[in-house]
């Protein structure tokens, strides 16, 4: 028996049979009995120490007002409401549903939907401050690639496309989709492209999927065991051109 079970016992996570086993064991094993005493002492130390940080009163106010702003902008963002629809138009709803379905392919699962939102906010934030844009500034792929070494549990492919009009500006680490990911920054004239890379869950390659969020174009695909998301305010055609370059470079 390992001491982990003593912890699970103190935490009330064991079923009855296991609990009895632990109790029996503690009668015979002095080390585990001591560990048990230590755990209960630690628990009461926590209880008596009031280590809980309650939220400051003004924080609730601040959050309430930022939520109200957000709720308003969501409504005005969807000014194309259903209210104006005459009843007769309801007949066209199935058709409209089909159009919407095709307009946002690939985002049928709510997971991708969340991810797309996360990508766009991350992209926007990365551009707000120059210091957020890159952790390593270099147009040299041989500088950027080793920089990720030891910071990620995978090696992202890094290529510069200066000669094709998409110079590499640098890279940075991000935390997205519950994991650390590589972000590469490219430029196309006055537009920036964030290319996010992390190991794919499935090994099979998937074709490019395009979508639009808050005026930004997103493209994602899976290739050679990596998942790619490209986000930019660049037009769809040129972003697709960029995605082609990335895919062909592998």
């Amino acid at each position, binding site marked *: 028996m390992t001491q982990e079970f003593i912890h699970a016992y103190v935490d009330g996570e064991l079923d009855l049979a296991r609990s009895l086993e632990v109790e029996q064991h503690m009668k015979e094993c002095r080390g585990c009995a001591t*560990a048990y005493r230590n755990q209960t002492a630690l628990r009461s130390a926590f209880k008596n120490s009031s280590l809980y940080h*309650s939220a400051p009163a003004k924080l609730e106010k601040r959050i309430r007002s930022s939520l109200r702003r957000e709720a308003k902008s969501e409504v005005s963002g969807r000014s194309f409401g259903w209210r104006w629809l005459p009843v007769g138009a309801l007949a066209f709803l199935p058709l409209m549903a089909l159009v919407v379905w095709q307009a946002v392919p690939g985002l049928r699962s709510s997971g991708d939907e969340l991810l797309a939102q996360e990508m766009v906010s991350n992209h926007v934030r990365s551009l707000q401050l120059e210091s957020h844009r890159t952790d390593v500034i270099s147009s040299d792929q041989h500088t950027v690639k080793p920089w990720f070494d030891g910071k990620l549990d995978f090696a992202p492919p890094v290529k510069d496309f200066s000669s094709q009009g998409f110079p590499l500006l640098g890279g940075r680490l991000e935390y997205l989709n519950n994991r650390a990911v590589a972000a590469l920054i490219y430029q196309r004239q006055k537009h920036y492209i964030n290319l996010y890379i992390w190991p794919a869950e499935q090994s099979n390659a998937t074709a490019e999927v395009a979508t639009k969020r808050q005026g930004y174009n997103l493209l994602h695909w899976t290739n050679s065991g990596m998942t790619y998301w490209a986000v930019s305010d660049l037009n769809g055609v040129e972003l697709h051109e960029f995605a082609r370059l990335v895919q062909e470079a592998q």
Partner: protein
Amino acid sequence: MEGQSKLASFETAVLPHLDAAYNLARWLTRNDADAQDVVQEAYLRAFRFFGGFHGEDGRAWLLGIVRNTSYTWMQRNRSPELNMALDDETQEAESHDLDPEALLLQKADAQMLRQAVEELPVEFREVLVLRELDEMSYKQIAAVADLPLGTVMSRLARARKRLQQILASQTQTEVLS
């Protein structure tokens, strides 16, 4: 769900967990101003994703978002903590505790305990805070921290072990000084 009605049901379901959200962010960022920013951003994210929430465990759902937002914050601020990968495979040597440690723990005051928890690696700190301060079950902790159940159990055991070591070294210094 549109505008006002979405806002109203969000406020009912998620706003009551503000203390838990702040507590977690505060322990992860170890700083009041940053914790407030993280919590505000987490609430905005939660509001945007509220459509995907189906009324299960509102607290665990929110804390998962707070945790992710805190990690993004640490990443952005290049917190050195995130570069220390925790190895969940290796077991620490099972040194059997000495009895006096229980005594030591009873003597440890709130200030010492707070300091010791802040010194823990972030992966240990988060499971300990969720367990001891939020009194979450292993299953809830697994959901918040996105970990397998077995890892929650072993991390908690290691976190407590480490905490005792830190407390022991603190008391020794105090006796000497």
